[in-house]
């Protein structure tokens, strides 16, 4: 567990792409308008989806060409370009003598070369908390002077390998994802990429387009209890959230975008954490009922949605939530709520009991 106040870190240039949407703004608008769920449970990704989505997402976060020599890149992902991995796994050469293994670092290097990033580069893979963990890593690299600016790109493609795995775990909903609903019965998978530019706020020339955020604090923790199930006592997530809001008044958190997978144990764990941590009742929303669970991409794409929430001053409803199991909590359902939003908390939890939380507030800048 860690607690850091990051008054000097700004997040901007939020890019996001799904098979149906090409920008973070269009995803936010679709979620806000209550369009049907965007999850891709029944869809099979096409061959180039990894390249298409990552390119769309990174393009929005890119600094000008002349600044890329000192801009680093973190790729956050659970599985990387699974099309390549599945091709390798299905090769006719069972001993894999002729085909080099597909490495996550190859995915990183391909993106780095494509866009000309010259600063530090690495791959962060911490299951479904990968995106938020990568932003924390990027913020630390900027704060410690290891990098002047960093682009974080978070991406995962829900191909057959992953779909079959979640089916084997009996984690897939039979109908649709209903986070925090009494009738919830599992998640729906989605494919996505999302990106943002991480800079020092004292470096005003380094801001990308669109709404931007200040990183007020972060926390990251391990449950240390189970390889796939969350801690029933929510101790790990509670530690991460408390660390993220340690430097601010907890009552100043106006809304939370929860991980909200729609699985029985994850949602119960998160509800317990919210009841434990907050004495007031911030708006609680979650995007996976609309987006599907985009795995390692989910943290950054949902942070992009947080930026648009703060910009538009509105909290979208949780798609699929009709009958909350925890009515004492302030879940936003059925219709979006206009609100005076200054600070949002974003949480993520993943296999292995890996939790991360970011507290962010609105930066006045809309970028260049």
């Amino acid at each position, binding site marked *: *567990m*860690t607690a*850091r106040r990051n008054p000097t870190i700004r997040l901007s240039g939020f890019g996001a792409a799904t098979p149906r949407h090409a920008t973070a703004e269009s995803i936010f608008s679709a979620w806000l308008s209550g369009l049907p769920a965007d999850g891709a449970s029944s869809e099979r990704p096409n061959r180039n989806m990894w390249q298409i989505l990552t390119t769309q997402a990174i393009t929005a976060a890119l600094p000008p060409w002349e600044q890329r*020599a*000192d801009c680093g890149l973190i790729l956050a992902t*659970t*599985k990387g370009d699974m099309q390549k991995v*599945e091709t390798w*796994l299905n090769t006719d050469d069972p*001993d*894999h*003598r002729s085909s*080099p*293994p597909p*490495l*996550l*670092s*190859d995915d*990183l*290097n391909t993106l*780095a*070369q494509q866009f000309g990033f*010259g*600063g*530090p*580069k*690495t*791959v*962060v*893979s*911490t*299951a479904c908390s990968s995106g938020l963990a990568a932003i*924390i*890593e990027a913020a*630390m690299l900027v*704060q*410690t002077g*290891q990098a002047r600016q960093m682009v974080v790109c978070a991406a995962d493609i829900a191909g*057959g*390998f992953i779909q*079959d*795995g*979640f*089916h*084997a*775990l009996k984690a897939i909903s039979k109908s649709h994802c209903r986070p925090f609903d009494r009738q919830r019965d599992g998640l729906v998978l989605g494919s996505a990429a999302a990106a943002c530019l991480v800079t020092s706020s004292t470096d005003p020339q380094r801001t990308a387009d669109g709404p931007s955020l200040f990183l007020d604090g972060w926390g*990251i*923790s*391990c449950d*240390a*209890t*189970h*390889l796939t199930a969350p801690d029933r006592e929510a101790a*790990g997530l509670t*530690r991460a959230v408390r660390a993220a809001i340690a430097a601010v008044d907890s009552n100043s958190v106006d809304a939370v975008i929860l991980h909200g997978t729609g699985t029985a144990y994850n949602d119960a764990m998160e509800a317990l954490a919210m009841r434990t941590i907050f004495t007031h009742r911030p708006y609680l929303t979650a995007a996976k009922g609309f987006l599907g669970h985009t795995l390692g991409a989910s943290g950054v794409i949902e942070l992009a949605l947080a930026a648009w929430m703060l910009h538009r001053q509105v909290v979208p409803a949780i798609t699929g939530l009709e009958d909350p199991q925890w009515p004492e909590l302030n879940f936003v359902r059925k219709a979006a709520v206009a609100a005076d939003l200054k600070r949002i908390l974003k949480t993520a939890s*993943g*296999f*292995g*009991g*890996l939790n991360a939380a970011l507290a962010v507030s609105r930066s006045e800048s809309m970028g260049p």
Partner: protein
Amino acid sequence: MNDIYIHTIIAQPGNGPIHAAGNTAADFAEETREAAAFSPARETNPVASQALALMALLLHRVSTSQRQKLGLFIGTRFGCLEDDRIFQKSRIADGGKYASPAAFRRTLPSTLPAELSIAFGIQGPLITFADSSAPIMIAIIRAYHWIATGAITAAVAGSFDFLLTGNTTSPATSPTYHTLLCLMASRETFPELNTWATITKASIEANRQSTDQTEATPEVTDFTEILTAMGASNDTTLNLHRQSGTHNMCHLEMRITHQ
């Protein structure tokens, strides 16, 4: 910059001997039973068994409450590809009807680090880095900066890798695997522990001298390099430099302070 110590570093190539520095083999004697207790269950993945055993040795003088506060920073080249292969076999068997949930839950690069956190009660940050060339150096460098900024006071950093390559029926191309782990901390965290080295510089920088946009992926990681460094004599300074991906250069400078 703050002094960050490597108290103990421990490594094992495949089923070869265990190498350790900062603590002697005698220090480990009492703990061999704890280490052995982790070994038998994972026949399909020897590196999981190895990593659990080495972790038990590494942390044998670290109390439960101290373990809870540790961070865990692990680098890997191949990640979970071998586990991917096991799950894939279960997918295609019997027409795809019986994909194995037990195999699937191991198909993440962060699975084994998470297993270590569970086995040893580590509740701090856990981050897995994928790098083809310098996974150990990246893990150590990042742990160094997490400790130096005060975000945590101590961490386990290191690497594991396992991939079946070549014809597995031939001894000459038998599966290769290895684990390397080190216990790192700020100066005041573990005053009772021996110290192997003091880290004096740790950075990942742009390699300005390189103009090659298509640098080949190295065939080996930094495991052998670090293993060799473990044999350095007292009062020497180690300067490790290693290319990591395209235009990345890892620097690690350490002063050996105890043997």
